[in-house]
């Protein structure tokens, strides 16, 4: 996320720049209004933080908005300790989105910067229904967590990378066709639906993964694949936790690495961009209908997902619906249930493609 900070108090500005740098934001700190307007006009920031002058605060807001060609910058006003209600109202009316007061407290300042992302998620949520018809198959497009997957995973992946990403809502046009990535397969217990979350890089972004995430530009392909799988795993975890908040329980698989082609139009794509605009990672979400299989307990294998609860003859629950089997649990169930017991499972579609 690119931030322009306008504050004529040098000590305060320096302190805020240090806080932004520590939080891995890409920020430009300026003391002169003209320099700030030029910086905004040169490259539209996601956030403008500005110190409100004692007179003409509303006019300053209008000039800042005028310099922002994208018209999308979030304006965060910094007031003196006790601004008048009138000054506050004028600055907000002129277009500032939020404000905070001196003295600047880092933790509050950084928390205020998260508001734009929250607002985007909230606005998107308004466009999706909050009610599901449980008598019909789940429409994955109604799952808010799925609709906002890109924004959802940005925070966690930024944390792993040690770099604050901003989220683009399209496939990265700058990516070449030499694509590699990792996919985590997720299932809904009882539903014949498979969700795939992929983290994809091109050759340039793969170099970034090696040098930044692995700390070794010459890291092996296997090590880079491992890093991509962990990114996919993290993305899957973020989706799973968010879906849980909507009372939808997803079963997560083990990520696999694959070669990719540019995704079809049926896939939802996002770009995770550095402050300088380089695309670091692409996030792709795909929902697939898939048929469950009926297999004998003796044929259970690693990666299969149970479509229903499994109980023994006494009614004791051995494994709940949605359990993804490991070789250990598959062998245990096979031994407990015997060859004549049949179960419905989702197949381990990608379990055999880990090294593809």
């Amino acid at each position, binding site marked *: 996320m690119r931030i322009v900070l306008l504050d004529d108090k040098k000590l305060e500005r320096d302190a805020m720049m240090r806080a932004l740098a520590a939080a891995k934001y890409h920020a430009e700190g300026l003391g002169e209004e003209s320099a700030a307007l030029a910086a905004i006009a040169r490259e539209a920031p996601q956030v403008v933080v500005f110190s409100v002058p004692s007179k003409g605060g509303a006019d300053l807001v209008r000039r800042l908005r005028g310099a922002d060609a994208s018209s999308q910058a979030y304006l965060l006003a910094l007031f003196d300790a006790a601004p008048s209600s009138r000054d506050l109202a004028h600055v907000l009316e002129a277009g500032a989105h939020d404000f905070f007061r001196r003295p600047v407290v880092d933790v509050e300042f950084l928390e205020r910067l998260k508001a734009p992302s929250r607002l985007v998620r909230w606005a998107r949520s308004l466009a999706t229904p909050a009610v599901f018809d449980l008598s019909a198959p789940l429409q994955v497009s109604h799952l808010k967590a799925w609709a906002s997957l890109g924004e959802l995973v940005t925070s966690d992946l930024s944390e792993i990378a040690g770099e604050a990403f901003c989220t683009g809502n399209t496939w990265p046009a700058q990516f070449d066709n030499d694509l590699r990535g990792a996919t985590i397969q997720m299932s809904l217990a009882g539903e014949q639906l498979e969700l795939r979350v992929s983290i994809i890089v091109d050759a340039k972004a793969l170099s970034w993964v090696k040098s930044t995430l692995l700390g070794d530009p010459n890291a092996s392909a296997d090590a880079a694949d491992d890093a991509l799988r962990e990114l996919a795993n993290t993305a899957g*975890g973020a989706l799973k936790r968010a879906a849980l908040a909507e009372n939808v329980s997803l079963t*997560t698989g083990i990520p696999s690495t694959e070669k990719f082609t540019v995704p079809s139009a049926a896939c939802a794509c996002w770009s995770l961009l550095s402050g300088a605009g380089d695309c670091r990672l692409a996030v792709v979400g795909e929902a697939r209908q898939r048929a469950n299989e009926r297999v004998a307990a003796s044929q259970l294998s690693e990666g299969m997902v149970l479509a229903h609860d499994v109980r023994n003859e006494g009614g004791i629950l051995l494994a709940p619906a949605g359990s993804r089997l490991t070789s*250990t649990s598959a062998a245990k169930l096979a031994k407990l249930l015997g060859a004549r017991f049949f179960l419905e499972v989702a197949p381990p579609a990608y379990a055999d493609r880990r090294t593809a």
Partner: protein
Amino acid sequence: MTNKVLVIDDSLMVRRQVGGTLKNLGYSVVEAVDGLDALEKLELNADARLIVCDVNMPRMNGLEFLERLSASGSKIPVVMLTTEGEPDLIQRAKALGAKGWLLKPFKPEFLEATAKKWIPATT
């Protein structure tokens, strides 16, 4: 002799991050790639003072590992490090004897606090 920590995760990157943090804190680290591997490593490293364990792993997952460890009578504290946050799963891990649950992405400061809690400096 340095205190030993067993780190179980199928991701090399996570093992490196977690292991690196622990080594910087003065611990020695043994790595395992899944639950089965961890059970084997424990036979040679029964003096481990703490186990940091992923949940979703091939062959034997973290909860299955906890079950086996608990059945063996081991007293080594286990802290789970995972992307999972499902309350049922956390409760199952607690019932199986897990002492803590850390959410990925991995945060060094949380791991440090956890390690210091379960491996007191005086011992």
